[in-house]
């Protein structure tokens, strides 16, 4: 890709707000069959569709968090001409209880993909990429134009920190960090194509459907 245009900064860019407002999490190939994931055209740096083996949509968990605690962090370094992006999403769950602990326990050992919507309504994708994804190399698609099924650049549980606190005024809660090492910047989820009559991301309760 040649560098042939620059980029502009508009008023709305300068008026952008911080933080993440929605977090959706799903396990790769959670239906037991290859996911059907379609990337945008070269240069677009998008994911245009995330579908399970049924080929229509995918089901995600909606993870509510304490407001103003979730953050998407990208740390890129270049070494030996390879750019490595350590991407993480961190969020706080107030008040430890059995339900939350059970849901967090589910992350252990899972290969995850994450959708995080910032407060400017952009959806960032972690755990789905198309650069140096491993020896599968996106060669084994479920359908033509699809990404591979055995990517090694998935997201996973990084750390969980927290506790009950000691003083009555201390916080009781857990801060969760999910991480993913990619070799390209996170892509944005921008649905295009034949699903214009259906919501791109439809959330009902703690479940979301992504097309």
């Amino acid at each position, binding site marked *: 890709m040649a560098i042939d245009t620059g980029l502009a900064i508009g008023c709305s860019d300068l008026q952008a707000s911080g933080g993440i407002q929605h977090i959706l999490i799903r396990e790769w190939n959670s239906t037991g069959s*290859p996911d059907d994931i379609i990337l945008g055209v070269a240069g677009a740096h998008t994911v245009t569709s995330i579908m399970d083996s049924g080929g229509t949509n995918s089901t995600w968990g909606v993870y509510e968090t304490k407001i103003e605690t979730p953050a998407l962090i990208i740390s890129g370094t270049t070494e*030996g*001409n*390879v750019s490595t992006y350590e991407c993480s999403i961190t969020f706080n769950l107030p008040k430890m209880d059995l339900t939350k602990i059970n849901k967090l326990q589910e992350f252990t050992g899972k290969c995850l993909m994450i959708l995080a919507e910032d407060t400017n309504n952009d959806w960032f994708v972690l755990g789905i990429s198309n650069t*140096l*994804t*491993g*020896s*599968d*190399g996106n*060669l*084994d*698609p*479920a*359908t033509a134009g699809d990404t591979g*099924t*055995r990517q*090694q*650049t998935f997201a996973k549980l990084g750390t969980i920190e927290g506790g009950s606190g000691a003083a009555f005024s201390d916080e009781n809660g857990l801060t969760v960090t999910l991480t993913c090492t990619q070799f390209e910047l996170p892509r944005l989820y921008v649905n295009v194509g034949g699903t214009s009559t259906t919501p791109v991301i439809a959330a009902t309760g703690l479940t979301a459907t992504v097309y």
Partner: protein
Amino acid sequence: MAIDKGIAIKCDDLQQIGGIKHILLRDWTVGDVVSYDNTDDHAIDSIKDSGAATAKWYLYEFKSQEASMTVNATKENGSTAFECGLSLTFPKMETKKFAELQNMLTDCMMGIAVDNNGTAFVIGASEKYRNESVASRSQTYLNVASMEGTTGSAFTDDNAITLNLMAKQYELPREYTGTITYYTDATPSADYEATTN
């Protein structure tokens, strides 16, 4: 052969990426036809099996960033030998992987290692000192040199086995300039096949 050209280094040479992205292996088989290209290149432009338009290969996936190809040349008197190694690590030891590794213990193989810049190198198939009449009886094949596996001891240790393959050749590895077609069966591949032609 006389020295008749120099070597240029361009921007994209300096932007190279380390490591291997695909490793293909196959057994040498009676009737294999390997076409060497010496016209201003050190390449192989075709590998086909007996009577076919293609040759079938098997793709071995590995833990990302844990595969490498090495070339070590030593010259003694008038002979230069190239020990070409291919090392790859399979995470999580288990029966399916062991079965495939067990299969290759006594095999005479050839391999293609595609680096992360997209260049495919052939090891275990070389022209110098090849068998002139039956290619599959060439003795510069690729074979198992060693394996190292461990469960680790701590929970956070790696559970993996590393396979080291070696071909002793008398020329540098050649680049494969023919066509490699991956995964003929897809969704997902049952046999992890690829073909060359």
